[in-house]
């Protein structure tokens, strides 16, 4: 086994759905030993969410759960029960990191707030991942991924381009899937590893308070920044004066026209039509002034895009992608999930790995977007079944098998 960055770091995860479990899984992939605590019987909420093989729901067959929880030991523990909290304290005494997502107030009730836990283990790092953070006037507000996407400002500028032109009066929409939840988990890894790094020098743990809404807003800095120039980006503002997301023969492509080279490349790609060679369609007139894009006449943009689309509709996304890149145009397919899974580039880099899960079977999963030359992430075990490692974890804490029977009967594990 190659060496890994976080070998020997013990993480306890008491978190649901995506952000917290994803944060813990990334650390596990990098070598940390993660014990995931789930509520007895019901388990993590993600077990109820698909995709399920053949669309048959089953708590041990959720693709979402499986993707977020490999490389972990799984135990059940009821923290609403005093005996459960005693067991939890024992786990915490040996841990380096706790990842938790309980609402403020509830954490104190369950005894997993930083003030309480730091007394048991001063070296402990507690990473809290909650919708609004643990402080401030919104801290007790309810949230779902939808309200995070909109409350962060990410939704206000979606959709855009041709969709906006077709439906200028319709509602803003969220970004795709649960991406904000995943990104919040990634933010939490940066913060947690920072706390681990500092602990190497100081010997002290600390509390890390991640707000999901802040984590998602943090990614829209570019859009927000133009407020300083008195401009509020909305669904009507476009990234590129011409080009952008365009229809082609068998789908869509994304063309980013910013430089002179890319504009000349596009003209070459579409066979240097007569209109494109006139002064009216020079780089200076069509593209330049990118930063002041709103000044480019909307009607003109549409007219040029229609010209380009005529050519696009005769060509496939695969052709436009490779031929366009050969002409020096920043262009990609608007890949659907099938295109992604079949991508030569992704597969050449080994992005997809087949994991064999006892209930799900063998399925290809997305893995890591980066290659570490020395401390490679690895998938060593599939996601745990509910309570799969109870015996292994609790006997290590000194519980005899008959104690576990008793705890089980009492609904503690």
């Amino acid at each position, binding site marked *: 086994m190659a060496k890994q960055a976080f070998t020997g770091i013990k993480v306890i995860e008491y978190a649901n759905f995506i952000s917290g479990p994803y944060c813990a899984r990334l650390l596990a992939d990098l070598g940390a030993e993660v014990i995931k605590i789930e509520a007895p019987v019901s388990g993590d909420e993600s077990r109820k969410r698909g995709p399920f093989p053949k669309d048959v729901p089953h708590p041990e067959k959720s693709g*979402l759960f499986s993707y977020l929880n490999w490389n972990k030991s799984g135990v059940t523990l009821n923290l609403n029960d005093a005996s459960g909290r005693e067991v939890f304290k024992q786990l915490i005494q040996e841990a380096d990191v706790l990842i938790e997502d309980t609402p403020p107030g509830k954490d104190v009730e369950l005894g997993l707030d930083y003030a309480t836990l730091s007394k048991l283990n001063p070296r402990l790092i507690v990473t809290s991942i909650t919708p609004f953070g643990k402080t401030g006037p919104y801290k007790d507000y309810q949230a779902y991924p939808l*309200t995070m996407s909109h*409350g962060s400002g990410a939704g206000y500028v*979606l959709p*855009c381009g041709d969709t906006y032109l077709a439906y200028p009066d319709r509602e803003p929409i969220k970004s*795709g899937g649960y991406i904000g939840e995943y990104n919040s988990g990634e933010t939490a890894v940066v913060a947690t590893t920072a706390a681990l790094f500092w602990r190497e020098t100081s010997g002290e743990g600390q509390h890390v308070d991640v707000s999901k809404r802040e984590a998602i807003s943090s990614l829209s800095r570019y859009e927000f*920044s133009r407020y300083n120039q008195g401009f509020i980006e909305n669904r009507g503002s476009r990234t590129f004066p011409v080009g952008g997301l365009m229809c082609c023969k068998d789908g869509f492509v994304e063309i980013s026209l910013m430089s002179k080279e890319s504009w000349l490349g596009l003209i070459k790609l579409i066979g240097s039509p007569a209109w494109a060679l006139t002064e009216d369609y020079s780089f200076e007139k069509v593209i330049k002034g990118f930063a002041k894009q709103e000044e480019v006449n909307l009607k003109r943009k549409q007219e040029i895009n229609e010209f380009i689309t005529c050519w696009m509709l005769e060509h496939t996304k695969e052709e436009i992608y490779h031929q366009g890149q050969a002409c020096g145009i920043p262009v*990609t397919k608007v890949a659907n999930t099938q295109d992604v899974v079949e991508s030569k580039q992704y597969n050449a880099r080994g992005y997809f790995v087949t994991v064999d899960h006892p209930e799900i079977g063998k399925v290809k999963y997305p893995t890591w977007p980066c290659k570490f*030359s020395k401390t490679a992430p690895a998938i060593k075990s599939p996601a745990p079944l509910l309570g799969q490692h109870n015996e292994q974890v609790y006997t290590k804490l000194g519980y005899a098998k008959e104690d576990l029977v008793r705890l089980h009967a009492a609904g503690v594990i």
Partner: protein
Amino acid sequence: MSSPTSQVLKGIRVIDFSLVVAGPFCSLLLASLGAEVIHIHSTKKDDMNRVGSPSRYNAVSLNRLEIAIDLKNPDGVEIAKKLIKTGDIVIENRAGLLEKLGLGYEDLKAVKPDIIVISGSGFGGTGPEKDYAGFATNFVAASGLSSIIGYEGDLPNEERGPGDFRAGQYMALAAMTALFHHKRTGEGQHVDLSMTEVQSCGIGDIILDYTMNGRVAAPQGNNDDYMAPHNCYRCKGEDKWISIAVGSDAEWKKFCQAIGNPAWTKYEKFADMLSRVKNREELDKKVSKWTIDREHYEVMEILQAVGVAAMPSLNAAEIFNDKQYKERKFIGEVVYNGEKNLVLGIPFIMSKTPPDIYHASPLWAQDTDKICKSVLSMSDEEIKKLKDEKAIK
């Protein structure tokens, strides 16, 4: 330059060759944790955004020093190497350019054997499409994410800035991992990150629906398979919207009560979650009738008071004036090139080593002299000579 509050990366020097967004955002996160970031910029051409859109530039290039070096000049390359010799970690997103200039990972390892190099590129440093060009919008499109953004049954959509920031944050995650490994073992390494693959990680479950069931995902608007109401509803005012998500029958009861239990809430077709999901178009119209005469913040308060998730679809002005963000000091103000700029802070609080924004972005070549003197111990004559031969600016 003011000093960072956070002591996490105190003494860590970052040499940053990156441009535009992803690399600079990675460096910003490291700088906010106390690292000293020295950004190397061209002597010949200013930054496109710094010239054309200073507030954009300043949204991401904060907390750093800047030296201008001509990396096509052999003396310039030597200066860069000298800087790297004093550094701990190199951040770059120049897609193979550094190798061509003699500053690739192997070259840098010869200068400093334990150097860490974090390379971010559009499609990764290996594979048949490694040299392909693109911007955030392209990476998001190529990742599968664009294909699921849009109204239900309609076109896919472009996403603008976030793709770059996602990649930058992931580069910071890789950087912290490599720094931790270095702290424990003294060993450096190279990390090769694909900005496109970063985006795909965040739609893992949707990709799995293809690898498991062969189903290709399509745009779903604001919809959720298991929840309704679950949408954005128009409110009073121009382009004002409230997002509302009702996640259980218990929350539905609270929602009905909060809006005054109108007769339609008793309809059989809205009686349970599955019926509401099935009849969501009709349900959305009813909900909109209630929201349309109210301010979005007012709706948020009415619904949150009973424990129903509701947040306005906020615009930039509302984000910068958000009372929660202000309370948590997530909004900062810096003076950049004589102008006040509102900027977002760092999206996590650390109880003992809080990250912060402590300095506005640099102007072109702003710290060249200072870095030459204090980091490289050059004399005024040496600096003048290098400037005369245009190796530095």
